[in-house]
């Protein structure tokens, strides 16, 4: 598909790659905790984000959200908007505007057409003005006439109408053996239901696009995680050839899944720019980010675990209800981790969908595991207590040697080691299994544990490296850095293989004019684009060997010099007029022949205020095994961020819709509570040394979502240990604990 001709070093992962140049490289930069190469730009405010490009003749656009939950737009009073000084026009294109964002990686357009309103806040028009303020004034007071229809807004009221969604990353329904009969017959049984609320990624940077047309070609500065597929989505939405759409996303101020696919502001800006013949900027207001970008579905998870007297699970049932808009195929894959986390010959992992007129649900950091692990890992904690067994021991007993559903081994798996290592580091043996037995002043103190797992993915990606005559290398790819450290680890990979100091690597990411890549999502970015960079560098290494007239195996590259055949020459000299190569990684049979996932263990200590029920996390530890750690500092930061998300999931984040009309109630950062610094104590991260030769040639697995997967249930389990109140309805806010606390 990519078609790079002879100079592409393409690898399909059909076989393991036991040898990696990252292990034999002489430069010694891989895995080192280097500061971010883009750090100085960011802290000095000189990294240009999508909304910040100074484009001559720029028109400011502000989006207009529907003020009904379901119905139809009858009329928009464009003239009223034009009476606001500075307003140029209102662009209304009912057919082309997109109803909602697209999911990540899709090639096609998202659902289009906005005359019919399917959720409160659906973008129906864009007001254009000379200034942002004028556009906002007119947009907020734009008279829109609606026809109201009855909508479905209440999850509880419509649960009975749940339907089977189409297949996603996993099948919606899976069953093996006889889970019901074996459950009924099991000597030990647990049947619990956990509820998790809807959440929003709430990235610091709002969704933003600047659209510019030159003849029939569109350039869009966007805040997008996956420019390659986003360009395809945008082209399809606009009815133009993908070759005519260029997306540039150099820096992204957080995505967490909400910027995987194109969002309504991109199409609105592009349509408006075309109509007006001028570049148009559209930045979502914070309230619009909450209303009109993907949210994580709320979930209701019924977990039934049947086990024998020794704790071996014989029946594992995880039935989930999730929600999405009518016509949308994505379902929150709540049970994705359940498929391979624990033993159990008899299994059922089901997902059913409640159709609601609430904003689109889609991927948010670790779709599936982030909330699915809440149900499973809290249930395991409950089962262990019921059996009088240590919860780590129960997990150890049920740690499978091979995939419990497919007859294949794990590519690498360190779940029990992570639990044991974490227990040792955290002081798990200090835990009193009797809840409420440790009190310090007004605080009831408890500790909890949960397993971490996140499926590992590889996505087709490519990258180019040019070796310049001055001995520098330019690495380019449509990969992105959404704040994760991609710029830095890609530079480290190139530097290690090419034997160049990192300072001599010039990184270019986030431009669809560069080789296509899968971008940042699903924790696949480092492994996928990183492998592409690795393969390009490997090809260049062979060219250098050829120029040195040595076998590549006899070549050592270090500090800009090539050593081999008893000769030492500078790489700059060998490069001549310049060399270039493209690398391409393609997923292959290895992901069928091995179940691939990263693993870990979360430990949390919390205090529950005995007077008020306020919960404060006191310390957390995450022990993770995710293959090769490419940069110890950025990897740790990813885990810290994930664990912080976990604290939010456990304690504060709760996106609330008014069941009367589908209106999002808390749509700003004052009332949608993400954790603040004071909520996040000292977090500790420890990596286990691991290489995964089945995953990719750099032996790394995904890390960006591992830190959240399991973090929340560790906190929730710690709350139970602290005060003896099991809250099965997240987030665990003080009101839910109050009734269970001791009398004063």
């Amino acid at each position, binding site marked *: 598909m990519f078609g790079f001709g002879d100079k592409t070093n393409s690898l399909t992962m059909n076989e393991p790659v036991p040898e990696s140049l990252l292990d034999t490289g002489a430069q010694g930069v891989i895995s080192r905790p280097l500061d971010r190469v883009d750090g100085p730009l960011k802290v000095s405010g000189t990294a240009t984000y999508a909304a910040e490009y100074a484009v001559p003749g720029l028109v400011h656009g502000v989006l207009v959200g529907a003020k009904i939950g379901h119905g139809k737009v009858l009329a928009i009073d464009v003239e009223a908007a034009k009476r606001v*000084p500075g307003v140029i026009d209102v662009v209304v294109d009912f057919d082309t505007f997109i109803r909602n964002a697209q999911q990540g990686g899709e090639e096609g357009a998202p659902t289009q057409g906005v005359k019919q309103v399917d959720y409160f806040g659906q973008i129906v028009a864009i007001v254009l003005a000379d200034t942002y303020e004028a556009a906002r*004034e007119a947009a907020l007071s734009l008279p829109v006439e609606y026809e109201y229809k009855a909508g479905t807004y209440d999850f509880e009221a419509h649960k009975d109408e749940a339907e089977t969604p189409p297949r996603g990353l996993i099948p919606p329904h899976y069953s093996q053996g006889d889970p019901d009969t074996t459950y009924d017959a099991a000597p030990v049984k647990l049947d619990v239901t956990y509820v998790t609320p809807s959440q929003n990624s709430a990235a610091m940077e709002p969704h933003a696009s600047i659209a510019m047309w030159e003849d029939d070609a569109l350039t869009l500065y966007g805040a997008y995680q996956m420019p390659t597929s986003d360009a395809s989505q945008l082209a399809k939405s606009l009815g133009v050839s993908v070759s005519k759409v260029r997306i540039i996303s150099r820096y992204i101020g957080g995505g967490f899944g909400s910027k995987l696919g194109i969002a309504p502001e991109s199409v609105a800006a592009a349509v408006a720019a075309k109509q007006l013949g001028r570049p148009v900027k559209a930045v979502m207001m914070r309230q619009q980010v909450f209303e009109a970008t993907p949210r994580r579905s709320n979930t209701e998870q019924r977990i039934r675990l049947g086990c024998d007297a020794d704790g071996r699970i014989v029946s594992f049932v995880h039935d989930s209800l999730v929600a999405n808009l009518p016509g949308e195929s994505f379902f929150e894959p709540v049970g994705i981790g359940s498929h391979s986390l624990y033993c159990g010959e008899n299994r059922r992992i089901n997902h059913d969908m409640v159709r609601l007129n609430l904003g689109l649900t889609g991927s948010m950091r670790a779709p599936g595991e982030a909330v699915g692990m809440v149900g499973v890992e809290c249930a395991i904690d409950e089962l262990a207590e019921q059996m009088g067994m240590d919860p780590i021991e129960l997990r150890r007993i049920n740690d499978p040697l091979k995939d419990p559903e497919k007859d294949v081994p794990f590519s690498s798996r360190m779940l029990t080691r992570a639990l044991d290592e974490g227990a040792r580091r955290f002081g798990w043996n200090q835990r009193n299994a009797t809840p409420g037995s440790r009190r310090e002043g007004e605080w009831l103190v408890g500790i909890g544990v949960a397993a971490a797992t996140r499926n590992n993915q590889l996505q087709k990606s490519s990258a180019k490296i040019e070796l310049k005559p001055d001995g520098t290398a330019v690495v380019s790819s449509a990969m992105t850095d959404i704040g994760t450290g991609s710029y830095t680890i890609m530079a480290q990979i190139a530097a290690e293989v090419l034997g160049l100091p990192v300072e001599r690597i010039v990184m270019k990411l986030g431009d669809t004019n560069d080789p296509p890549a899968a971008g940042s999502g699903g924790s696949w970015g480092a492994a996928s684009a990183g492998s592409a960079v690795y393969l390009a560098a490997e090809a260049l290494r062979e060219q250098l060997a050829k120029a040195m007239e040595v076998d590549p195996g006899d070549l050592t590259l270090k500090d800009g010099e090539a050593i081999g055949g008893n000769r030492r020459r500078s790489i700059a000299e060998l490069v001549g007029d310049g060399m270039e190569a493209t690398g391409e990684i393609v997923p292959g049979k290895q992901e069928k022949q091995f179940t691939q996932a990263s693993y870990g263990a979360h430990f949390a200590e919390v205090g529950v205020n005995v007077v*008020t*029920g306020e919960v404060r996390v006191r310390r957390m530890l995450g022990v993770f095994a995710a293959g090769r750690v490419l940069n110890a500092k950025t990897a740790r930061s990813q885990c810290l961020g994930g664990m912080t998300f976990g604290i939010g999931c456990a304690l504060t984040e709760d996106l609330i819709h*008014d069941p009367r009309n589908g209106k999002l109630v808390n749509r700003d950062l004052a009332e949608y509570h993400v*954790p603040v610094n*004071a909520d996040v104590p000292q977090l500790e991260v420890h990596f286990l040394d691991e290489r995964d030769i089945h995953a990719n040639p750099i032996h790394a697995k995904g890390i960006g979502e591992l830190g959240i997967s399991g973090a929340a249930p560790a906190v929730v389990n710690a709350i139970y240990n602290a005060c003896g109140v099991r809250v099965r309805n997240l987030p665990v*806010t003080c009101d839910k604990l109050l009734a269970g606390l001791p009398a004063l």
Partner: protein
Amino acid sequence: MKLFTYERAASADAAVAEGAAPGTKFIAGGTNLLDLMKLQIETPERLVDISRLPLNTIDEREDGGLTIGALVPNSDLAADPRVIERYEVLSRALLAGASGQLRNKASTGGNLLQRTRCYYFYDTAMPCNKRAPGSGCSAIDGYNRILAVLGTSDKCIATHPSDMAVAMRALDATVVTQKADGDRRRIAIGDLYRLPGDTPEVETVLEPGELITAIELPVPVEGARHLYRKVRDRASYAFALVSVAGVVTMDGDTVASAALAFGGLGPMPWRDPAVEAAIVGKPASDASFAAAADALLANAKGFGSNDFKIPLARRTLIASLRELTGV
């Protein structure tokens, strides 16, 4: 944000003269007003900027009290050594509110006049009697977790969001104003606010153009223990679900004096003499603390998702009184 004119007041006299005109608002720190204007919840036609008026000092009065200029930033007030030493509850309340950046910008006078954080007040797509009188209250039958259980009406159940004002109420602060005609008046903080009743859009007794110029704190209570306890959904940067400001003196085991004010419960910083009467002159005990909680919550009414505030307030008050009295 609707188009507005902006002018800078050269003096307090000039400010009040300008401020009386219809559609005019004063702006100082702007930490609340600008947010509300951006969302078209407040749509003033004219802003009179008072931020450069010389009302930014904290002065000791001859009677031993403190006069705080209305433009003293919250962070300066919280850090003033005299405030920390003599009015600890005020410093603690200030530091429990907002964030460092907001406190640097927010003024003392403006803090008193913050508007409610009711979700529906903040959303112009929804009916709200406070924002659009007569349109109805979306919160009473809606999601009202953060809203009031005391002093509500069938028109409005909004809470007042300030922490500082709760401490000021416990301290019996006096609000000094200058009216449009130049007259000055002194308003006890308990008289500044109005209950919603049928007119929730009217929140204070201030007249058009009336400018808060200072807040006077009375002579500090000698030998008092101070407390500000704030219960919230996250450790910082969240409005109070319930807060208690307390200034208590003891005579042996007997409560000699008590001033108790509450945040998060009502449409104004709440103070009820019956609560104090339940403990003053009596030995400090859980029995009298329970009686105080009974008095506070006798007329409390929940609206569904805020029902928990009633037991939460009870527990928080009792624990606060234990701390204040050393029982």
